[in-house]
């Protein structure tokens, strides 16, 4: 919870937090052990072998020892490789969202956070999420690089203009938690803070129902698809021959005219809407006009949501 006064550890409010803290405590013990070891040795040697002390045996003061030096290369190597493997496995799961996660879209801009829930509710600087459900965030920035950071969840992801980034979490405590922008983003960087509000699932449902209902991203996407005249070429009933069909496109690998292959993910779709000539599908002419400057990040998200829905007829 926010405003808890002085403490030495942040709250644990996600499934990830205890496992990150465990690794943290392990690192803390390893580094305390070595710091104390070095400090004790320095103080002990300093006192025992101080110049004034003539009562001490200084003969055979070695200036090298191969086994000792190999030992203190191998031991740190083993310890650090263990830490690497531990940290890596956590990181791997941290950035691989589960398939059934609730997908919330977030847009960062100087200096605010804008979120939209799957059923259409929008909010600024607040993010309501249900307790005990995995939540996947798909994030993009309208201007500079920001970073989505919730200390109580031990999670952070840069929010980059021009590409979608993801992170996910599953909250384990209800309450209100800090949401910070962690990447320096200009004058009011330190004011770009929000709150993550974790609610009981039923309460979250109530909140969704009571908050200002908007058109859902899917519906908005369908509407935009017609407004931007995408429908002229990309017709749902089948390819006209002039343009690649969008049905079942999302998640597939696409063959390009230059012979390479790209996965049709969100970043690819976004690029193809803004710069259609950049990666042209094999067998097609670059006929499509660019929508650069005519479409906002939010509208892009709606369109892509709609195109994704075409993937599962």
């Amino acid at each position, binding site marked *: 919870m926010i405003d808890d006064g002085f403490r030495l550890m942040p709250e644990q409010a996600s499934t*990830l937090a205890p496992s990150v803290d465990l*690794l943290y405590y392990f690192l803390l013990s390893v580094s305390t052990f070595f710091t104390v070891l070095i400090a004790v040795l320095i103080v002990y040697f300093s006192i025992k072998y101080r110049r004034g002390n003539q009562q001490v045996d200084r003969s055979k*003061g070695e200036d090298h020892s191969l086994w000792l030096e190999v030992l203190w290369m191998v031991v740190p190597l083993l310890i650090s490789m263990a830490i690497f493997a531990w940290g890596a496995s956590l*990181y791997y799961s941290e950035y691989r969202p589960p398939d059934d996660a609730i997908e919330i879209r977030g847009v960062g801009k100087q200096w605010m956070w804008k979120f939209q829930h799957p059923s259409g509710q929008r909010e600024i600087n607040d993010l309501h999420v249900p307790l005990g459900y995995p939540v996947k965030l798909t994030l993009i920035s309208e201007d*500079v690089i920001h970073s989505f950071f919730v200390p109580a969840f031990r999670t952070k992801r840069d929010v980059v203009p021009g590409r979608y980034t993801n992170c996910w979490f599953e909250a384990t405590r209800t309450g209100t938690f800090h949401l910070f922008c*962690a990447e*320096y983003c200009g004058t009011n960087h330190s004011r770009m803070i929000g709150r993550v509000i974790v609610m009981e699932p039923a309460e979250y449902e109530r909140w969704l129902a009571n908050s200002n209902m908007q058109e859902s991203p899917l519906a908005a996407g369908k509407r935009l698809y017609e407004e931007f005249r995408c429908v002229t070429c990309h017709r749902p009933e089948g390819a006209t021959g002039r343009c690649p069909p969008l049905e079942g496109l999302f998640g597939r690998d696409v063959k390009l005219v230059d012979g390479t292959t790209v996965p049709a993910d969100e970043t690819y779709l976004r690029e193809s809407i803004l710069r259609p000539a950049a990666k042209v599908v094999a067998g097609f002419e670059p006929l499509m006009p660019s929508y650069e400057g005519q479409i906002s990040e939010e509208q892009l998200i709606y369109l892509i949501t709609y195109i994704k829905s075409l993937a599962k007829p």
Partner: protein
Amino acid sequence: MTAALDRPTSVSPESVSLPKRHYLNSGYTVRSWLFTTDHKRIALLYLVSITAFFVLGGIAATLVRLDLMTPQADLVRSETYNKLFTAHGVIMIFFFLVPSIPAVMGNFLVPLMLGARDLAFPRLNLLSWYVYMVGGVFTLYALLAGGVDTGWTFYAPYSSTYSNTYVMATAVGIFITGFSSILTGLNFIVTIHKMRAPGQVWFRLPLFIWSIYATSIIMVLGTPVLAITLVLVGLERLLGLGIFDPRLGGDPILFQHLFWFYSHPAVYIMILPSMGVVSEIIPCFCRKRPFGYEFIGFSSFAIAAFSFLVWGHHLFVSGQSIYAGLVFSMLSYLVAIPSAVKVFNWTATLHKGSISFDTPMLYALGFVGLFTMGGLTGLFVAALAVDVHVHDTYFIVAHFHYIMVGGAVMGYLGAIHFWWPKMTGRLYPEGWARLSAILIFVGFNLTFFPQYILGYLGMPRRYHIYPPEFQVLNVMSSAGASILGVGYLFPLTYLIWSLFYGKVASANPWRAAGLEWQTPSPPPTENFARTPVVRHEAYDYPAIDNQQVEEGLR
């Protein structure tokens, strides 16, 4: 052994007088300083200019810490705060830490330690200083005229498209100064290869030379990448090419790759020379060969080599591929090994030594302690999942200040105190100097240790205002900073005092090994009356002490 032999400073000072002719009095005119090609005088030019930059960077840091005493912005506005931390970072990194030991101590010591009359390219050396000053003045103008608010990292697209501050002028200044770094590195490499005294084979070189050599390699290979990166930012600002602008097909993450390809190795430009200094000081005040000379020497090269392979650990949360994260994390751990080797070797050098605690030794021991803590917290930062949490928080601020202030600055002050008698021919007041070393150690820890906790709690860096629960730790940090500041004012005062009133130093007040001590203090312009011939390893302290015992018995 007699007590008189044990305490070098107790050799009666009346018996020593300054040499009649030395590099400092070989000309008094401004011209004789500004057009000098004497590496020792150039070192002093650097010393004066670098100290001025350190004071400026320190003032910016003081204002930042004062402002953070309260959670709300009570001292300056956000714009000003952002310019202050940027000025602090830019000045301290590019105009103090990177040139500090190489340009001041390296310039002074490399020829002396090699038994040479000067660096390989004396006029290039003078040019390096002018290039440094031109870049410095340019940047200073930018910082004072209007300031920059990008942070010293200049992340695009904020720096390339959005910031309305003096980004161009600052970048041009840093770009120019980079050439000074490249020229200095080049000069050192050639000098170390070609100008060693007869008999001074590689394995008889002082460890300071090994570390300066490794540093020079990074300077020559890494700095051009920074220069190119800044040129790209400049082109982007002026012409809108779209290299980093995603609206034009560019990639903002590309900037981070380019920037850290230089700036991670640059951390080792700052720390390797200090490691070299400590490897000189500890053996001298232990009267003992350094434990594992070869391991310390080669670990400098290992650090230099690995330093180029780990830049991606600054991008763990940037959205780079998970697998790139894994590779960079593993490589980062490899740098820890040679660093650990050095710490263990220094500690083992103390074993069965005959240890005295003069000021340089206090700084060296302080360095070992603080570098150990900075290095070990590097394990946290390289551990992927923990880094995700602490990335861009005060944990990082604490970590790199432990390395760059606790490490690099402690080493620099140790070096100044160790070689001050050689540079000026004067001794400083030992009591005040020891007090300052202790003050700096205590003040430093009080300033930066709370920031580790602050960071793990989640306080992001570069925050002008912050939630009130972080205030207690911030106040502790600011209080520590005031002790640290006072600690820094001490040497500034008594070192200047010593120039006029300090006791005259003998040629070798520490009875140290190393060719630089075999010429008068301060040395004559040509360094050595006759080219010395090296017949021993670099640190034969047992032989030095035995010889003095024999002379004492005679």
